[in-house]
């Protein structure tokens, strides 16, 4: 079968994302890549933990962070992870329109999260907490900004993927791509859970 051919319910494999060697390779390679990404964020977390109290004359985390806003952002991102799960469930059932719908919801939630983050950063800058104001500032914006950049990249990725494959159904070629995006999105979400805990909650109470 040609990898670019639209799959039908009759010839639909149980795991379309791993039905070809290319798909298997992408699946494994992407898991490994996420392993590397884990080290990347671990290093950023380590740096942040070492410098989080070095705010000098500027405002501290406890003074800056507003938990309701961050909670809202967290809810948006967690929900977007859930909707991407629904999209993958649709993928496995060969329901392409439903897949597209759930990924569009994921995309919108991601945009909402990014909007809140930009609003939050602008607010902090007005409070005197900038990238260059202290080591705390540099470490905070680098860690949270790296995560934000990952969200932005994910948004560009899913937009391209949906647009390119809008009328092509699910194929052996695009099924791994949808699946990998969902994996990536979950990873970005997990990183945020750690940021919420280490940066915001510990910043408020620890």
């Amino acid at each position, binding site marked *: 079968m040609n990898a670019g051919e639209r799959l039908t319910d009759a010839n639909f494999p149980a795991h379309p994302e791993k039905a070809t060697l290319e798909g298997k390779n992408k699946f494994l390679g992407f898991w490994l890549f996420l392993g590397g990404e884990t080290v990347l964020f671990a*290093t950023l977390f380590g740096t942040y933990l070492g410098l989080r109290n070095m705010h000098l004359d500027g405002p501290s985390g406890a003074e800056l962070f507003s938990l309701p806003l961050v909670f809202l952002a967290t809810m948006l991102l967690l929900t977007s992870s859930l909707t991407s799960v629904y999209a993958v469930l649709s993928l496995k059932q060969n329901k392409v329109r439903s897949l597209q719908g759930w990924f569009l919801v994921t995309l919108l939630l991601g945009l909402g999260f990014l909007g809140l983050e930009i609003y939050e950063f602008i607010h902090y800058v007005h409070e005197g907490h900038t990238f260059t*104001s*202290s080591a705390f500032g*540099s470490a905070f914006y680098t860690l949270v900004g790296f995560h934000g950049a990952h969200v932005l990249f994910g948004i560009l990725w899913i937009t391209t993927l949906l647009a390119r494959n809008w009328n092509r159904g699910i194929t052996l070629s695009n099924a791994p791509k949808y699946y990998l995006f969902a994996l990536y999105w979950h990873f970005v979400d997990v990183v945020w859970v750690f940021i919420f805990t280490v940066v915001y909650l510990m910043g408020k109470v620890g």
Partner: protein
Amino acid sequence: MATHESHKKRSGLMDWLTTVDHKKIGILYLLAGGFFFLIGGLEAVLMRIQLMEPDSKIFTGELYNQLLTMHGTTMIFLAAMPIIFGFMNAIVPLQLGARDVAFPYVNAVGFWLFFFGGVLLNLSWFLGGAPEAGWTAYAPLSTVAEDTGVDFYVLGLQIAGAGTLAGGINFLVTIINMRAPGMTFMRMPLFTWASFVTSGLILFAFPALTVGFFLLMFERVFDANFFNPDMGGNILIWEHIFWIFGHPEVYILILPAFGIISEVISTFSNKRLFGYSAMVFATVLIGFLGFMVWVHHMFTVGLGPVANSIFAVATMAIAIPTGVKIFNWIFTMWGGQIRFSTAMLFAVGFVPTFVMGGVTGVMLSVPAADYQYHDSYFVVAHFHYVIVGGLILGLFSGLYYWYPRMFNRVLNETLGKWNFWLFFIGFHLTFFPQHWLGLMGMPRRVYTYMSGQELDGANFVSTIGAILMGAGTVVLLINIIISASSKYATTKDPWDGRTLEWSMPVPTPEYNFAQTPLVRGLDALYVEKTAGNGAMTPAEPVGEIHMPNGSILPFILSLGMFISGFGFIYSNWYVAGAGLGLVLITMFLRSIIDDHGYHIHKEEVEADIKGGRA
């Protein structure tokens, strides 16, 4: 069924710029890495000329610091690692019985990123001066340096490092997913095992360096304060991050050399490798322990006796699996029918040399003693014994061993022996006296010393040794040039090989194996030879073979990174944006253009088999 697409062949320069064939990418890595090896070697010789006499004034101060920094950086990132990747690309898929690597396109991206990163870093020589903060770029040396040298260092290595990470993931997936039928993990040749573990180390070590470089870049380009104590920063964060990457890096370098030595000693002793499973276990254990020892580079920082002791014990523990390997190599030779080819000479020379580097390593792992050795020439002697005496001898061995497979020619053995003896004697002459220089108190990284301190003789001998090593390398270059003559054309199995890469015709067909081979034991080809078959048994009928298309996009993507590097170095955001834009456009094009590759027809493969070409 798949449509039969016509196969458009590119030729000449365009072929090399667009290739996604792992054999050609292997050659590209080897050539580029070899070129940087010559530059790094030249820098070393210039430093030794400055140190030949006391109070010498040839390359002093800033220029010496630049030579020192660029020598270390070039040798590690732009010479050793790419040459390793060259062998991994050229050999690992063949040893696995695979037609290609898992991600041929990503493989090309990895090479071009490394290449442009290396070029960017070396352009610093002509654009305001090379970096001068040492290859470790410790803050605050690297953060307060006012010229653009360190910016070239950070951006050049960041780009090259991204390529390395891509290569690491590629080989992990290739080895896990693309082994031929019967090629179980415990039947894989040791070089493939070493490549597997090294790729794992790359995956988990390089992202730390990526972050380190981002922090340093942000510090220099965007005025961040990670390492600026006045603004609450902490210089030790750089040291930790650098060595969390840097120590696994040492094993990333040496494990493939261990793999090469294992192959060569087994082949030229006409014996199965002694203690194969112990060798595999030792390789994995070294890889694992490699992540737990980074603080031994920082014993004198003052982390306290508890931290120092824990890391000292972990460091000493690495001597155990390494010792297992040394004994296994000796036992492989024991009772074997040894043929002293050039490859074997380098391998045999490697064993005692590496042991000497290992012994000084254990000495350095004792924190109390390390306070004495730290930052002296003793350390320089130690790491050159493991890196040159270990890795480089291993790479030379691998070059002579695999040259016929990669280039369809054998290297001249007489010149090869000149190469070995000049380099080997030169090496010991250079670095053995440096142990004493260090113990007598000569500090590292210093461009001169005074006469009358009994440092003159050893320094003079050391420089003579460096010149001999240079002469050995020149002999190798001559050897490579004359091997182009058809007189040196080779047969497919010049060494009576034991592993799959020697089962294929010369030159290696672009699809590697016309029929995927069936592997029936460790040393797959040797098993067939002793069974009287002489050739591999195919695991599948002849059929059409799917191949990936070449692409210019990896080159353009890396060019985009190169351009953006200049933008960041000179704080020109238009150039930086344009470069990154080019990268994003290339990624976009790659994802929207469907490229399902092409098929080599069954008839063509059959014709190749008939004609002895497959």
